[in-house]
């Protein structure tokens, strides 16, 4: 059982006359393979997998929390970059992590395939014959009977319904019965490990053919269509997703409602939406399906899922230019404090009717600053509550060149600081305004704070293998439960015909039992079987009966070689 690495017979002495190198290489390959698929290697790889995942728990990771990684790097200027080089901020995407789990799965497959065949063969094999000395087994009993051996074996067979049974004869009229139970354990074990492979396959498939996109939609009847990457604010494609051929379903966000508890904790969120699935869009349908989008309750349409991820506010400003023309500015501002939804942003406005480029660059406007849904009041506005109880904006109005055509990507939440530094964008007003309030600029332009709209941030996810992963996970759990609850056990009966010299002229019934996996719990079952098949008889108390040996289990385990584990070579040998 301990010989995990049995050298194949040919390896012992490579004969020098043969093309020795090839043979040696072959032997090396074979030994490597055996080593890789051994239980010990699997154990070590599993442990490595746990250790390699540790940084993923101890350090911030880019995938769920990129900002935390930046913070960490800023706070640890020496150690941080070193960790970064090792990939410790992206553990689950590093080559060394992949190497461990790939090796583990190679080992797993190499271990599973032969094991499955072996098990199928084993299912057809007869239970092994009865050991010579049943009294040496961890569970054993002996009694006598008035029936003849055949009758005893027959009643044992009836009692052992559900067991796999073989009846054999031994010289001297001795009849034996071997019984086995618990083959389901191995089935469970194989199902469990196979499901692991399926699970990994499913995850990989999803990573290759899935995608995830995020988009902010104003909750004022605005529409979003899944028509391509451009429809998203951010998009994470799977390895073989190029953004063409998405299911072009559409949705309209009509309304959003949030309610909060008195302490500002969110109480509920939901968005009223309407959607058309791909079919409806392609038919040019005019009807829309209503849906209530809430946390924990995504919209599932065409194999995509739409989630309500977050929400925020968008102040609406109307700018009336001196010539009487009006422009409306409405764009999301982003929360800077999740607890109070104090938000910041920059609403940018191009003056109307200006055709001259340089003129335009002198008269673009930006309304930037902070927005508080429930204002603290006073000169320095901050927010005290996340709901729209007493909204107020504290804004700077900037005029000049916003740098929108400079070719550089610009944040929608900020003005381009470099334009400010160059003096090409100057502040022309600073005021706190409430809805309905107005700011008058020096040139006669008036900016009115009309009110506030809600926006929602939506995530669209697509993972074609998700259901397969779920099925694999359920199979995994089923297999695991079987393999941990079913006990493999063996039960033997030897019936020796009456021999007047040894017993009181009665048939001797010897029983033996062996748990092939964990022995815990077999004792009671064996006790019941023994009580039925070889009930103790008062008059032969001092002949055939044996006292249990309390030291057997303790000694067995402590010597490291429990008797019954001799029987487990199939579990240990690989």
């Amino acid at each position: 059982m301990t010989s995990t690495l049995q050298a194949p017979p040919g390896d012992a002495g490579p004969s020098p006359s043969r093309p020795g190198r090839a043979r040696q290489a072959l032997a090396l390959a074979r030994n490597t393979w055996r080593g890789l698929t051994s239980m010990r290697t699997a154990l070590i790889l599993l442990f490595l997998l746990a250790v390699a995942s540790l940084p993923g728990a101890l350090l911030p990771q880019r995938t769920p929390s990129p900002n935390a990684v930046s913070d960490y790097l800023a706070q640890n200027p020496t150690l941080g970059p070193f960790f970064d080089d090792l990939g410790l901020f992206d553990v689950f995407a590093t080559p060394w992590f992949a190497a461990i789990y790939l090796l583990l799965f190679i080992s797993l497959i190499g271990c599973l395939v032969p094991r499955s065949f072996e098990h199928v063969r084993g299912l057809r094999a007869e239970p092994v014959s009865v050991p010579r000395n049943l009294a040496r087994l961890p569970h054993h009993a002996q009694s006598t009977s008035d029936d003849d051996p055949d009758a005893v074996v027959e009643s044992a067979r009836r009692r052992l319904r559900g067991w796999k049974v073989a009846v054999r004869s031994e010289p001297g009229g001795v009849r034996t019965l071997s019984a086995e139970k618990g083959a389901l354990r191995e089935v469970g074990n194989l199902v469990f490990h196979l499901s692991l492979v399926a699970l990994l396959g499913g995850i990989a498939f999803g990573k290759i053919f899935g995608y995830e996109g995020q988009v902010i939609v104003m909750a004022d009847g605005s529409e979003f269509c899944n028509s391509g990457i451009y429809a998203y604010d951010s998009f994470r494609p799977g390895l073989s997703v190029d953004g063409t051929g998405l299911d072009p379903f559409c949705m309209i966000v009509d309304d959003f409602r949030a309610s909060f508890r008195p302490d500002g904790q969110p109480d509920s969120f939901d968005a009223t939406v309407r959607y058309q699935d791909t079919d409806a869009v392609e038919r040019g349908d005019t009807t829309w399906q209503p849906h209530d989008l809430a946390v924990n309750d995504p919209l599932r349409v065409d194999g995509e899922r739409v989630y309500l991820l977050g929400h925020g506010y968008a102040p609406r400003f109307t700018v009336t230019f001196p010539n009487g023309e009006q422009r409306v500015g409405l764009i999301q501002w982003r929360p800077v404090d999740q607890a109070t939804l104090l938000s910041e942003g920059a609403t940018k406005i191009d003056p109307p009717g200006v055709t001259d480029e340089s003129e335009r660059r002198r008269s673009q406007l930006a309304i930037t600053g902070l927005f508080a849904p429930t204002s603290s009041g006073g000169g320095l506005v901050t927010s005290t509550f996340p709901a729209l109880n007493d909204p107020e904006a504290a804004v700077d109005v900037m005029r000049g060149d916003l740098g929108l055509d400079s070719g550089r990507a610009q944040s929608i939440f900020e003005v381009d600081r470099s334009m400010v530094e160059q003096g090409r964008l100057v502040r022309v007003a600073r005021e706190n305004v409430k809805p309905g309030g107005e700011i008058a600029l020096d040139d006669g332009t008036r900016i009115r704070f009309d009110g506030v709209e809600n926006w929602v941030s939506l995530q669209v996810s697509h993972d074609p293998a998700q259901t397969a992963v779920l099925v694999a996970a359920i199979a995994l759990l089923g297999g695991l439960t079987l393999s941990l609850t079913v006990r493999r056990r063996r039960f033997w009966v030897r019936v020796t015909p009456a021999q007047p010299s040894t017993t009181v002229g009665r048939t001797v019934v010897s029983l033996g039992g062996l748990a092939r996996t964990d022995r815990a719990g077999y004792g009671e079952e064996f006790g019941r079987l023994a009580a039925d098949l070889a009930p103790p008889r008062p008059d032969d108390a001092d002949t055939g009966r044996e006292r249990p040996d309390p030291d057997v289990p303790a000694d067995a385990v402590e010597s490291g070689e429990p008797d019954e584990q001799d029987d487990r070579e199939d579990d240990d040998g690989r």
Partner: protein
Amino acid sequence: MVVDASLGQFGDLLFESALAVYVLAMILHAVEHALLRRTGAEQEEARVPVAAAVGSGTVSREGAPALEDTATPARPPRTKAERFGRTGVSLTVLGFALHFAMLVVRGLAAQRVPWGNMYEFTAAISLVAVGAWLVVLRRRPELRRLGAFVLLPVIILMFLAGTVLYTQTAPVVPALRSYWLAIHVSAAVIASGILLLAGVASVLYLLRRVHENDPTRLTWTSRLPSADVLDRVAYRATAIAFPIWTFAVITGAIWAEAAWGRYWGWDPKETTAFIAWIVYACYLHARSTAGWRGPRAAVINVVGFAVMVFNLFFVNLVVTGLHSYAGVGG
């Protein structure tokens, strides 16, 4: 979502009573140990092998009668130590009842399952640990002397819950308001509680083995069940808890799919749950790898429990900033 404040306070009172009763029970178990040391240690020790044999379930056909033998020993009246131990067990049962009532009251007060925050979560894990211990005791009364060692971590956990982690009764944030809270978190709580018991058994196993290999060391462990029995308790508990933990992880993934838009995203909680799962898989593997069962496997089991504790405290308290339930989603 009505929160009944006075009911909540009553729950707190029950919590404190349960904790006090556990402390008392632990003290009684400790006294039992101390008395055993002084009075006739040999005589007491003579009973241990019998207990071990029954515990191992390896008795041959006298199995059933043997069990009865120990339940009603034809021995002289109970020793003083035994009386202390038995009272300790009774108090543990009482503490369990108060503890259970506390969670019920808490659930009624908040009108939801009573494991919506760290305080309740920790209290529930302790409850399961004590419950699992009582089940073991019922099936194997001879393991009673483990009582003090099982109660110690429970008391520490509950003390932390009642002080550092204490939270007033309140409804949970919308992200948590889902029937998955009941399913997923119950499974995690049950698995954690049983694994606590397994961890304790493995620690004691390691200590007891030191003594068995060299009887001059750690002599106090001679009053514990044999290493073999401890090992088996640890294994059985882990074998029951591991599928439950697996179920907890899977339902967590199902919930994450509905709440956060992906079934797995390596957030710290998920990562640590994964690590714990792998460590326990290591333990089960080690149990069937030649040369790894015994002490090495026990060490892995202890590491597994350390990861569970880390998951409970470090990830929830120190790393929370990363995945807080304050906003919508994660």
